[in-house]
């Protein structure tokens, strides 16, 4: 159920975000969702793309530092308190969240999809599924995005 996410090291100066986006665009690779974490001096751009192997290849060829991380995509009921319920499940399983961000494609009005980075994704996936938390696999995720 894991999703492979690309993380990119970005220096904090003009043009640094455009370059990898341009490289992916030129290679015809669609960005399904992204998150940008930044400090004053550098940033980490996290991307979910369908063809992550090729994306990594073209980015590295362009001199971009790339790291591949496993994340989980979780369906969260799209109503007040929905996220809190899911997070309670995380807590009950003793899972710590490194970071999270929203997946940009909404699923049929009932759910929002959130991306979580947890320290042990395999164990986390098994524990959460056992508690009935709905995880979205790569195939379904890309299908929803029409990719």
């Amino acid at each position, binding site marked *: 159920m894991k999703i492979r996410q690309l993380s990119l*090291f970005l*220096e904090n100066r003009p043009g640094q975000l455009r370059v990898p986006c341009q490289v992916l665009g030129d290679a015809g690779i669609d960005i399904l969702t992204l998150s940008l*974490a930044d400090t004053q*001096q*550098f940033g980490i751009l996290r991307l979910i793309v369908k063809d992550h192997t090729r994306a990594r290849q073209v980015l590295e060829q362009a001199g971009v530092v790339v790291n591949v991380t496993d994340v989980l995509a979780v369906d969260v009921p799209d109503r007040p308190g929905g996220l809190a319920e899911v997070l309670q499940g995380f807590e009950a399983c003793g899972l710590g969240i*490194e970071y999270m961000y929203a997946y940009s494609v909404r699923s049929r009005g009932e759910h929002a999809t959130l991306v979580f*980075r947890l320290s042990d994704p395999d164990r986390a996936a098994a524990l959460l599924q056992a508690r009935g938390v709905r995880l979205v696999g790569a195939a379904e995720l890309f299908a929803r995005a029409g990719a």
Partner: protein
Amino acid sequence: MARFALENRILDPEETLDRDALAALQGRRLAETVRRARAVPHHRKALERAGVRDEDLRGPDDVRRLPFTVKDDLRQSYPLGLLAVPREQVVRIHGSSGTTGRPTFVAYTRRDLDTWTGLVARFLVAGGLRPEHTVHVAFGYGLFTGGFGLHYGIERVGAAVVPSGGGNTPRQVRLICDLSADVLISTPSYALHVGEVARAEGLKPGDLPLRYGHFGGEPWTEEMRGEIERSLGILAFNNYGLSEVIGPGVAGECPARDGMHVQEDHFIVECLDPVTLEPVPDGEVGELVFTSLTKEAMPVLRYRTRDLAALDRSPCPCGRTGVRMSRVRGRSDDMLIIRGVNVFPSQVEEALLRVEGTAPHYLIEVSRPGALDEAVVKVEVRPEDFRDEMREMVGLRDRIDREIHAVTGIRMIVELVAPNTLERSAGKARRVLDHRKVGPA
């Protein structure tokens, strides 16, 4: 670490002269040098001003009666005003790099080239070079004394030279592999670059045929030696020289690798306080000052190198008797004064190498945006050390920040930058950009 044991072989009996015999030889040669130097108007006037008579020069300590020579004396006598022999006796001309201003030229007679070649051969043999070896020389050939100086020394030992010169590093890595080079000769920063390129080409340290390396031409640290040795799977040796004195071969390491033996039968070395010009005690850092004892074309009298190092006269287990000089800790004119504190680029390098996960490629930028100095250290992140978690990257930056503060005593702004974005060079790596200075200092 290196995979080879090193046998201590000494090329010349002069390297092991006892101190009394050495002093007698130095005294005799010093008097000869001063007599030769009187042929140069600049030296003759300076000697007269200092009241030096030939009969005053009896032993090596009398060198302190002589006037100093500085880089500016060479510049003002441009191009070859300090020549002590007729022009027809000159067989080679080299130049200093001109990194700190107008270039200066140095000339050699036939015998000077022979002397120089012998000095280079000494430290190469001390560092393991044998006739059956192949040496890859990645120093630039040209006016710079590094390329040709090492080249002829290698030939003197009888080993094979690959005069590769600078540039096109992937090609150089292939040459090293294809020709089974045992020895690499370059600047230390270029050696690290060779290691990076070899890794990028998919080679592990053990895949390279190299066994030893001789590095010089710029100051480097013990930590950097460790990086080079791990990265290339070699033993790395330090050597020292400068074109004004003769070129590489003024001093070099023995197998003990605990300081570089100064070739005292050819040079008298002094270590002086750069401000008072009084000798500093052994073990303390001061400016190195050299007087040549055998050079014909351009003898140098008490040449102020601006290089800061310490001397060690304790006996060396290798049997060589030449006084040992420490690594160059910096230059008396390169020293940065940041918010009133003396800082050497080598200290920043030392701090970086203490932090795991940083490549020693860095640039210090000093400016004065308001009333206070501000120092920014740009450090390249290696791809293998990039982590997706922000706190790990911030943690890395904070560790660098703390180490720099611990080593230099001042706070600098640490910026992590992408790999291969800082300038690489086959010559001297540029480590400092001081925006406070306008024009040459």
